[in-house]
Each structure stands twice: as C-alpha cells, then as structure tokens.
C-alpha cells in the first residue's frame, strides 16, 4: 500500500521512471547479476525489463537510468505482499508472481500496490492464465523448448508430413493471443543438463516473437557465466540473440497484423493449452490458420475464412453452432470432429503436451484435416521449409502481407519458395543480419504471387505489397 511506501523513495525515482516504457512494450529477460556493469550487456539490445531474484539499490538505480524496468520475482511459499512492497520501495517497477499462488493472491498484491502504480505480472501455469482480463501482460512459466525433436538415436523425429517434428509454443501462443491484446510472456527456462547452442536460443526467441509473444530471455548457467567473463563465443551468441530480438521488436507493426489464413481452427480453451496439438500440426504443414477459442467464436472471427475445423462441437453454445452452420451455408467448409472424439482424461497441472493416447486420437481428425486442406492455398504455400515454421499475416485491408519464417535447425536453409494467395507487385526481404532487399515476384500457376528466398539463417520476413 502506498501509505507504507516512503514518499521520498518514490519521488526520487520519478525522474528516472519517466524514460521507462509502458509494460506492454517491455522486452523481458531474467537477470542473475547484481553488478551494475552487467547492464552494459544490454546496450544496443531491445531488452528493457529485467526480472530479478535479488537486487541492490545501485543496480536498480543503474537500470532505471538506462530506461530499464526492473521487476522482483516472487515465488509461492510465503505471502508475497511484504516483499512486493519492499521491491517497490526499492524503486523496482513491480513484481512477478511466478508459480501457482493460492487463488486471489495476485488481486490482493495488486490492491496492496495500487497506489504505487506498480505492475504485477503473473507467470502461472498455462491452465491458470487470466485470459481476456485487463492485465497488460499475461504469462506462463511453462513452455516447450523450441527446436527439432531428436530421437534417442540422434535422428530427427518425423512428423506426420514426413518432415522433422518441431517443438513449438506457437500454437499455444496463437490461442492465447486470440483472447485479447495483452502482451504474452513465456517464462520457461532452458533445459537443464543440456548443451544449448546459440541457434537454440535464437529459435526460442523467434518462436515466441513470430507468434506475437515474448520469451523471457533466460540463459543457462554456463552461458551466463561465460558471458559475464566476456568469453568471445558467448558474446557472439548474445549479440546474435539481440539481433533477432531487435529484428522482431523493431517491427512492432507485425504484432498488429491479423492472420492471413483462410483456415479457422475453433478449439476449446483446454485443448489450446497443449503444445503439439492440432494447431501445431497444421503449422508444421505451413498452412496459415487462425486460432479461435470456442468461447470467442463470432461471425467476425470467421470473416475471410473459407474453411473451419470445429475441434470440439460439444463445447460450443447452440448459437455458436448456428454460426458455423451459417458459415457453411455461405460456402465455407466445416470439418467437425466426431462426437466423443475428445479425450476424457483430465489434464495434469504440469501437462503442456499431448500424451500418446491423445496423439493417437488426434491422428483421426488430423487425417481429415489433411484431406480437407490438401494442397489448397489457404493464404500461402511454402516449399523447402521442413525445418521451419511460419506465420502469414496481413493488414486489415489485405494490401500488405507479411510472411515470417523461423528456422529451427542449426543450418541455414537455401532456396525457399513462398507462394502467396493474391496479387502483389512488390516483395521485400528482411533478415536479422541486416539484409534488406527486393525480391523478384512472379505469378504462380494458380494466379497468386511467388517469391524465392536464397537463404534463411535464424529467421527472415518477406513483406508483400
């Protein structure tokens, strides 16, 4: 509560707070060092918000002087109200409640800090995320570590398409973002006891950013220590991460674009929480799609779509079922999962991926989805992208289309072809490495627009006008 916060402390911090971005623009990272010199590493990066487990007044002041917000990370176990007040008194911009606190805790802490205008970010399990609420940031501590899934024998695990299976959070993020405009933070950590290459960090950043969310940058202990000691390879990897972050954060307009996908996937909230589900399977086929939570299904949400997959008809209201019928009457194709298809077993609190039984069940509907979509161009078709995922977005008037590509392999991919629905006269390639060049556009066999990209390293974006 403000009355417990010394005014002097707040007033002294005021001039510095003025340069700090609003929470919706925060680009977060976990920060273990309390040495103010470590802040030098953030120079030239878009990271402007640090999550701290420990802090010193000097560090907090130093961060604020650079326009960097600081948040204290509080975990379940003790009442967070007191440490929250203490953090705000120390000049931090707010706190992060990381973990599953007893119900009502976040509201109570917010109330405690209300007068200080401090920010409270909740990083809950996926199932407890307060979706559709007023918070400027919603987050979870859960996530899959993005990358090509490798089997025990070292080979890449094949997806149903015969391509390598890519672990991704993008399907989940798409579902969460469909609930509202809040910034989405993913706070999962690098896997323990694993050698993590620089490319994997780039994939973690790009996986979230491509879908419009932010991964809370977190380095493994080895990387962190090497970076602190100025190890050349670590510094190079860190700069690469900053480059990819800047690539996405420097194009904030991409977050405001809507899906160009003509395929709508209507899915119950619980199903959407899991990675590796129907959204990720469709994404692996590079079929542009829009995720619509069943609870958010409206005629507007289906505007421009030509196909819809109703993953769980029983979860829809009679009015919503009627909407899908009207969609079909207007010429749309609707694929409805068979009754009783959905799994009956309750999700475990720590479950974020489908178990084998659910995957087997999903295969039936997946086969139907593949049959329905076939080789149709539902916004864009991409080729030579088996180790990539993509996101195809457009402006409201459809005059500009943006195709984002993220490469999850450790190797650059050469000769990627993109065939977009619609006629566009200009195409421009942008990459984190600073490539900015016009691409030759050609008319595809189906009358759309084609472009060829020579090489994609970590990620690339093509803008078509």
């Amino acid at each position: 509560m403000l009355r417990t916060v010394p005014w002097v402390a707040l007033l002294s911090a005021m001039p510095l707070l003025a340069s700090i971005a609003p929470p919706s623009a925060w680009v977060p990272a976990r920060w273990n060092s309390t040495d103010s010199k470590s802040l030098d590493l953030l120079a030239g990066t878009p990271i402007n918000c640090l999550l701290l487990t420990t802090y010193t007044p000097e560090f907090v002041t130093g961060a604020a002087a650079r326009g960097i917000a600081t948040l204290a990370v509080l975990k379940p176990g003790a009442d967070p109200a007191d440490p929250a007040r203490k953090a705000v008194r120390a000049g931090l911009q707010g706190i992060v409640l990381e973990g599953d606190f007893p119900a009502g805790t976040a509201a109570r802490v917010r109330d405690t800090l209300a007068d200080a205008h401090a920010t409270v970010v909740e990083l809950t399990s996926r199932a407890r995320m307060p979706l559709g609420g007023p918070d400027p940031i919603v987050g979870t501590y859960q996530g899959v570590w993005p990358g090509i899934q490798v089997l025990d024998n070292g080979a890449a695990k094949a997806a149903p398409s015969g391509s390598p299976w890519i672990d991704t959070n993008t399907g989940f993020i798409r579902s969460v973002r469909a609930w509202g405009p809040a910034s989405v933070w993913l706070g999962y950590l690098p896997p323990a006891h694993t050698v993590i290459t620089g490319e994997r960090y780039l994939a973690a950043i790009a996986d979230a950013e491509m879908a419009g969310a932010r991964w809370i940058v977190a380095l493994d202990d080895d990387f962190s220590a090497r970076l602190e000691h100025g190890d050349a390879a670590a510094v190079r990897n860190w700069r690469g991460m900053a480059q990819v972050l800047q690539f996405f954060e420097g194009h904030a307009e991409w977050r405001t674009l809507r899906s160009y996908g003509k395929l709508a996937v209507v899915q119950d909230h619980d199903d959407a929480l899991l990675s590796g589900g129907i959204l990720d399977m469709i994404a692996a086929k590079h079929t542009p799609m829009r995720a619509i939570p069943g609870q958010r299904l409206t005629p507007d949400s289906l505007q421009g779509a030509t196909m819809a997959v109703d993953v769980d008809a029983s979860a829809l209201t009679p009015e919503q079922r009627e909407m899908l019928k009207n969609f079909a009457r207007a010429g749309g194709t609707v694929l409805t999962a068979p009754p009783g298809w959905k799994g009956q077993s309750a999700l475990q609190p720590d479950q974020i991926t489908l178990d084998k039984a659910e995957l087997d069940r999903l295969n039936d509907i997946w086969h139907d989805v593949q049959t329905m979509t076939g080789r149709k161009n539902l916004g864009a078709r991409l080729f030579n992208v088996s180790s990539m995922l993509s996101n195809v977005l457009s402006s409201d008037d459809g005059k500009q289309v943006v195709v984002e590509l993220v490469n999850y392999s450790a190797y650059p991919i050469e000769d990627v072809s993109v065939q977009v629905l619609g006629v566009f006269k200009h195409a421009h390639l942008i990459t984190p490495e600073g490539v900015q060049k016009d691409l030759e556009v050609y008319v595809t066999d189906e009358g759309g627009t084609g472009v060829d990209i020579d090489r994609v390293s970590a990620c690339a974006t093509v803008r078509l006008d």
Partner: protein
Amino acid sequence: MTRREWIALISAAPLLKAAPGPGDAAPATPVAIAKCASYDEDVTARLATMFDQLGGLDRIVRGKTVTIKLNMTGSPGLRVDGRPPGVTHYVHPKLVGATAHLMGQAGARRIRFVESAWATSGPLEEYLLDSGWNVRQLLAAAPGVEFENTNALGKGRQYARFKVPGGGYLFPAYDLNHAYEDTDVFVSMAKLKNHATCGVTLSMKNCFGMLPASIYGDDAGVDAPNENPTSGRSNTMHEGRRQPSRSAPAELDPRSSREPGYRVPHIVADLVKSRPIDLEIIDGVESIAGGEGPWIKGIHRVQPGVLLAGLNPVSTDAVAAAVMGYDPRAARGTPPFRTCENTLLLAERHGVGSADLRRIDVRGVPIAGAMFRYES
C-alpha cells in the same frame, strides 16, 4: 577374390575386355568416368565430355522425347545434418540442370523429369520445390522441359503395362505411369550410394522408384489403384506382406521368400529388363555412405568427387560399384551384398548387360583413379 587380385582386375579392366568371362552372354558397353570435386565446378563441361566419350548425345536424343528418372528417395523434409538433399542422398539439381541443358543443345524434343515422389501424388514441381530446387531455372535449362510425378496415374489416362521378357523373377509384368512408355529414350539418373536392403543403389536400383505407390504402395487400393497414396512400398514390395492392387499382374509365387534382401533385387532386375534404360548418369560428386537416406542409422556424408555415365545399366553399375571399392560380382554374404542378392548379377542373368569389368571399356578416368572406398 583377394584384395591384390581385385586391384589387378580394376587396373587392367580396359585391357582385358576381350578375355572370356561369366557375363559373356550379356551386352557390355562403354562407361565414362569423370572427376568432379564439387558442384561448383563446371558440371556441364564434365558431362559433355563424358557424353562425347560415349559416342555423343546427339545420336541418342535428337528429335526424341527423353524421360529422365531422378533419384529423390524419401521425404524431402528429412535431411542429413540439415544439408540440402542434393549433396547427400538426392541427385543434385545442378547435375539435373546441366543434363537438361546438354540434351536441349543436342536436339532433344522434350525432356521429361520423372520420379515417384514419396507418399504423394501431387505435382513433381512441388516436390522439387520442397527439395530446395529452383523449378523455374530447370524449366529454362532447355526447351520442352516438363515434370511428372509417377507415383500414381499422373497426367496419363491409364497405366502402362511392362511385361518382363522371358518371364520375371517375382512378377510377370509391372504397371507403371505412362511416362515410362511414352518416351523414346529412358535415362536413369542415380546417386552413388549404399543401400540398406540392396547393398548399393545405382542406376538400376533407382528404377525401383518407378513403381507407383498407388498400386504397389502400402495404402494401395485392394482392387484398383489408390490415386492419393500417402505411404511407401515397404509392406507390399520389400516384405510382401500384402499384394499390389488387383488391377496389376499378381506375384508369380506368393509363397516365395518374403525377405527384402531377396525380393527387392529381384524386382529391380525385373524392372530394368522390362523397361530398358538407354542412358545412365550417376552422381558421385557428394553423397552418403552406409545407406540410402537419413532414416538409415549410421550413414555419413562422403565426397567421392566422381561422375559416371554409361549406355548399359549393368555395366555402368558394375563400374560404379568398383569405384565404390566393391567387387560388382560379389556373392551374397560379402560386401556390399551382405544380406541381399546381387542385383547386378540378377540383371546380368536376365540378359540386360554384363557386370564383368574385364569386358567393359572404361573411358575417361580409370576406375583405380576414381576409386573412393565406401567401406574401409
């Protein structure tokens, strides 16, 4: 054959071509070998020289429709170390483009690239794009370039039936896409590789991929072809667990061995007997050893730096096997045919050609000079 005898044989092969041998009854034609360290070299010039060494491309393709069976085995999404498939287990697109260019220059009327694309009946052009190939460049390489996916009916109205002259080993005839019939010249463009089932996969084994999965695939229709196949051919052809669609000729003896190491070599020999190959081109510039694709455990990338071309598939494959460091007449149980029949000898027995190195005129680089041992 001892190692010493083997080295003596490959060194003396051109000189000993008149000596009598076990493959005498079958034809033997010249085989050209060229060194080519990388795809960045002038692949077109290398190929042109080889074709000249074989008597010139004009006489083979002028005014003709040429069908070129590519080797693009397995899903293009599966990669070896993330590398483009052309430098591992597919033929390289530069070689394909160079071939089209030279054939166009030599007066070919139409150049049709074909392959039974893995688990799909979609356009071959899309399969090529998924492999990272520039289809527009290939189309521009020569006049009359076209593509066909032979994994199903494709652009044809009916399947073409190819009877095995004199009767087949496993099937009396095979039903294939029309492209293999509607052509004047048939070319097999293969990769220099080992094969888990057949020991080596060269110009002849490449033709196993002519079999449409619509008829011979694991999800082929029981009575009629399934024109949208989504599987490979393992259950049906490798292991004989089920029969092809009844629309095609049935297996001669369903009680014969179901062992892949027996079945696949015999089927391949049948196929090259029924659909003769007029020209073979083998890409050994960069490849893999230990198997035919990334799904085989233990494979590794190799750079033999060699190209081969010939006018008889048995002879060409014999020389290619020798370049890989193998005895092309090796018996079952010896490398590389450890667990399989020797396809080359089966084809020789069919009268397709001779696998006897002493009868084959090797032109360009001698075998010993091009040898790259796939096994130490």
